[in-house]
C-alpha cells in the first residue's frame, strides 16, 4: 500500500493511549467522552479502537456498521459528522455480523493491529486517542511497537475506586514504566452515584481509590467522573452526552479532565 512520506500518522499531532489493567472501568466511555470534549474544544480528533474482541466505540458514537473504503494511502476512517472533526477506525467495521466473535490468538491480533496503526489514512488530526482492551498483552505490545515508529505522547489510565480495580491498574502502571510510556494521569470513573430521587450519594464501587493510586505511584490525578445514568444512556444510544447535558456535573468533570489532557500534551 503506497504511503505518503512519514506514513499515515505524519499529520497526527498527538497520540494518546487509553489504558487500564482492569476490564469494565469505562475506557471506551472515557475515550468517547474525551473525544467529544476535544471536538467541543475545537480540535480535530481520531479514535483508533484496538479492542478486537469487544469493539464498543462504533455503538457509542452511533456510526452503525458503515462500509469501510480504501484509498491510495490506506483505509479511510469513518467520520461521525459532516465537518470530519471526529474520525473513527474500529475492527467492528470489518465484521459482517456484529455478533460474530473475533476468536484470534495473539499472532493474528498483532498482524491486524499493525495494519490498523499504519494503514488508516487519518489525514490531519490534533489528537488520536487509542482505546485498548484490558490487560498487558498482545494488543498493548503491538500497538506500542507499531506506534513507536511514529509517536506516543502518553497514556491515560482509567480505574474505578475499588481496590480490585486499582490492583490491576498498578500493573498497567508498571507496564507503562517498563515500556517507556509517559503516564499523563489517572482518571477515576464510576466515582459515586447521586440518587436522582433523594440526592443521597452512594459509593457503589467504593471511594477515593483512584486518587490514592495516583499518590502511591507518583502519577497525576486527572479527576473523577461520577456514575451517571444519563451518561450511560447516551453511551448506549450513541448520543452526544456533551450536547445533551452541557450543564451537568458529569460534563464539568469530563471537561476538566480534557483541559488537563490538552495542557499536558502542549507541554510535551
Amino acid at each position, binding site marked *: 500500500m503506497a504511503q505518503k512520506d512519514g506514513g499515515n500518522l505524519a499529520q497526527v499531532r498527538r497520540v494518546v493511549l487509553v489504558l487500564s489493567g482492569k476490564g469494565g472501568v469505562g475506557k471506551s466511555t472515557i475515550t468517547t467522552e474525551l473525544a467529544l470534549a476535544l471536538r467541543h474544544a475545537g480540535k480535530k480528533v481520531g479514535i483508533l479502537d484496538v479492542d478486537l*474482541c469487544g469493539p464498543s466505540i462504533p455503538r457509542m458514537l452511533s456510526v452503525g456498521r458503515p462500509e469501510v473504503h480504501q484509498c491510495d494511502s490506506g483505509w479511510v476512517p469513518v467520520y461521525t459528522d459532516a465537518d470530519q472533526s471526529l474520525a473513527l477506525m474500529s475492527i467492528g467495521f470489518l465484521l459482517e455480523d456484529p455478533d460474530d466473535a473475533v476468536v484470534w490468538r495473539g499472532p493474528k491480533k498483532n498482524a491486524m493491529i499493525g495494519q490498523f496503526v499504519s494503514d488508516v489514512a487519518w489525514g490531519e488530526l490534533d489528537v488520536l486517542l487509542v482505546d485498548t482492551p*484490558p490487560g498487558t498483552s498482545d494488543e498493548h505490545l503491538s500497538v506500542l511497537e507499531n506506534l513507536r515508529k511514529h509517536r506516543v505522547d502518553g497514556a491515560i489510565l482509567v480505574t474505578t475506586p475499588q481496590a480490585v480495580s486499582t490492583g490491576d491498574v498498578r*500493573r498497567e502502571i508498571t507496564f507503562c514504566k517498563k515500556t517507556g510510556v509517559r503516564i499523563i494521569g489517572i482518571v477515576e470513573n464510576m466515582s459515586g*452515584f447521586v440518587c436522582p430521587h433523594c440526592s443521597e450519594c452512594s459509593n457503589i464501587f467504593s471511594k477515593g481509590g483512584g486518587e490514592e493510586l495516583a499518590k502511591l505511584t507518583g502519577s497525576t490525578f486527572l479527576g473523577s467522573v461520577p456514575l451517571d445514568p444519563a451518561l450511560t444512556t447516551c453511551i*448506549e444510544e450513541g448520543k452526544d452526552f456533551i450536547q445533551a447535558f452541557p450543564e451537568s456535573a458529569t460534563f464539568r468533570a469530563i471537561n476538566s479532565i480534557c483541559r488537563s489532557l490538552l495542557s499536558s500534551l502542549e507541554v510535551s
Partner: protein
Amino acid sequence: MSDVPTNAPEHCPGTQSEQAGKASPCQGCPNQSFCASGASKLPDPAIAQIAEKMKTVKHKILVLSGKGGVGKSTFSAHLAHALAADTTKEVALLDVDICGPSIPRIMGIEGEQVHQSGSGWSPVYVEDNLAVMSIGFLLSSPDDAVIWRGPKKNGMIKQFLRDVDWGDLDYLIIDTPPGTSDEHLSVVQYLTAASITGAVIITTPQEVSLQDVRKEIRFCQKVKLPIIGVVENMSGFVCPKCTNMSQIFPPTTGGAEQMCKMLNLPLLGKVPLDPRIGRSCDEGMSFLEVVPDSPAAKVYQVIVQSEYEHRETYTHTHRSSFHT
C-alpha cells in the same frame, strides 16, 4: 515441546501456531525447520495428561463474559464459597486471568505462595475444602505486571491444568479474563478430552455489554461448549436512603432477559448492585457471609442452589459415566 521453547526468539508465534516455522521471527531460530515440518503440531501430549488429571474432577465450570468488569471474578469466587459451604464437597477455583488476576484478593489470600512437590504444585487453601490457584501467587509484588504474549500465557494455562495437585474434586470453577482469545481457546483446547460441564455467562444489563456477550455465546457455540446459563449482574440499584430503584446500567435493549429469550438460553438470575459487594471483594470476604440478607446475596444463593441441585442430580443419574 512447550508452546514457546526457551530458546525461541522474542516474537515466536508458538509451536502450535499455523505460522510455526514460517513467520518472520522464526528466521534463525534453531527450531525453525522442526516447526515448519509440522512435527511441532502433532496433538499436544498435555491434552491427554490433563484428561487423565481431570478424571478425579466431577464438574468443570467455566465463568465467561465477552465484556470486562461485569463481575466474573466476583461470581466465580462466591460460587466457590457457596459450593464449599457443603463441607462434604471438595471445591477448587482456578484463575486463568493471567494479566489481571483478581481472585487472590477477592478470596482474601493475596500474598500467599504456592509450593511445588513431587505431585505438582500445591494450591492455596481458603478452607479445608476450598483450594485456589492463580498467577497472582507467583508474583512477588502487587506492582508486578505480566507482560506476556499469547503463546506464553497458553503455556502457563497448560501448567495450571496439568501440574496443580488438586486431588479429588467435586467442582473446579475456572475464572477467565474478558474476550475470546488465547486464554479461552487454550482452556477449551486443553480440556478437549476432559469434557467441560459447561459455561456460566455473566453480563450487565446494558447493550454495550450484551453486544460483547453475544460474541462470547457465539464462541461457546463454535467450540461446542455447553452453556449452563446467563447471570445478569448490576441489575438495578436500590438507594439505601429512599429505597427508590435506579437503573444505572439501563437495559435499553431488554437486558439479559431479552437476549436469553432470543437465544433460547436460561437466565439463571438477576443480581442487583450493592455497594457492600464491592467492599467485601476488596476486603477478601465472602459477602454471602458478611451480608447474607442483602438482596444480592439472596439471588446468588438461589442461583447456586439450583445449579448445585442440577449438578448433583446429573451426577447421581450419570454416575457410571465418570468411571469411563
